[in-house]
């Protein structure tokens, strides 16, 4: 992650893809709160009958480290039948912005 002189927040993008059900946001946000991650923005839609949610989260000060949180969220997603991934925002900016 590039370091900004203004100590800009390190941002992560959480993507959730799968079948809609009760409690998705509740479960994920509880896990994020437990890891000291603030949710900055959230967007959800249904694409081709598939529930799709993206969250922008502050990962500047993740309790326990970024890698373990990403893994825990992925496993939580698996247990709910959802594909959940957390990665830094840089990859999306690089691929979609000139």
């Amino acid at each position, binding site marked *: *992650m590039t370091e900004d002189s203004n100590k800009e927040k390190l941002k992560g993008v959480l993507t959730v893809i799968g079948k809609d059900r009760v409690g998705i946001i509740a479960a994920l946000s509880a896990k994020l709160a437990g890891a000291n991650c603030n949710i900055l923005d959230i967007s959800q839609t249904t694409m081709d009958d598939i529930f799709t949610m993206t969250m922008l989260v502050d990962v500047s000060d993740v309790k326990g480290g970024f890698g373990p949180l990403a893994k825990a969220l992925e496993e939580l997603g698996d247990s709910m039948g959802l594909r959940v991934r957390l990665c830094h925002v840089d990859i999306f900016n*690089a*691929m979609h912005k000139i």
Partner: protein
Amino acid sequence: MFIPTDEIIQTVRMIQQEHLDIRTVTMGINLLSCARGDVDATCALVYEKITSSAARLVEVCCGIETELGIPIVNKRVAVTPVSLIAPADPEGCVKLAVTLEKAASAVGINFLGGYSALVHKGTTPSERALIGSIPEALLNTSKICSSVNVGTTKAGINMDAVRDMGKVIKRAAELSAASGGSSCARLVVLCNAPEDNPFMAGAFHGIGEPDCVINVGVSGPGAVKCAIEQVRGCDFTVLAETVKKTAFKITRAGQLVAGLASARLGVPSGIVDLSLAPTPAVGDSVARIIEEMGVGRCGAPGTTAALALLNDAVKKGGLMASSHVGGLSGAFIPVSEDEGMIDAVRKGSLCIEKLEAMTCVCSVGLDMIVVPGGTEAHTISAIIADEAAIGMVNSKTTAVRIIPAPGKDVGDTVEFGGLLGSGPVMSVRQYDGNGSSRLFIERGGRIPAPMQSLKN
């Protein structure tokens, strides 16, 4: 939302379903400072230099993988062509190869390239020793990759080296007969070899490079194929634009990884190699892109034109996405590493001669070609000469990575495992007696540099 949801989902889909990955982060390390009169002293310094320079390479790359959510499939090291620091005896050269293997294991990489000699204009005693030692060096190692540059546009083709490499390849195959001649999968003969290539088996750290450097090779045939599925029936302008846009995104991911790895390792960033590198996995094939373009079977008429368009569009799309472009940069067509190519060979639509034509318009050359064990050394040399001539005349890199699998014949398949895949044995036009190419190869000497070399 900060980035449109569909763009986020597109990226996630490219990585998770279309096999988009960073194929390799390769650290180039200069070993010239390690050369001593005594080979054991050289070995000690080589081990120290590699294990200290690349100590954090794998750890840093794994961290980037986790953060960006994109796999970095290979973490590798390329070193100064070993012939430049090697003694003029083959046993000493093998000692260096074993040392490189130990260093590669210590830092946790899967391949180390640079057991190499650049002999396009002539051969020094240590280069002769190293070339002679290649079969034993490969037999005694599993991570070391070897390459020999036998020609350039500027110098012509060293046909003595071409003749010798036919024999070296045969011997390497015979020594590793138990595994189908697998040593040859780590040995490539090049013309116009780039000094900053991050891809194996041809990677080495050229003498014009800094002390240490990070080069990145991207991939993404699956992502390109999925993108062009959306433009079926559209004309070639639309097709080329679609490939360009996808290549841009793929390369931007590579550029991002190159920058991060460089910053975290404190090593300058060299180049991004704009490549389409297939794997044996279904959905990660260059051949399937050609078929998606409308050529029913890879190898059928139209294949070369389709590959030319693909190769050009990948470069045009990638060029703007990267600060410095280098390496091989183009689509790869390794037969055993591409599920669609393997299928095309089995169905009879793809032969060596068609692959040779394809190498005129894409990166590298006859790559991971398995031929019958009965293929003679002079025939292999003649195949190398043909490929080197294409590279020399067209001012491009060409290469031959050919495996004369002992005891195998057309119809058999040789399993190499992992990224190297499995190769169906391909038919070679080899003729007996006066019909052979033996007399051509036995002439020796150099093929003069072509007119294209006189640009000053």
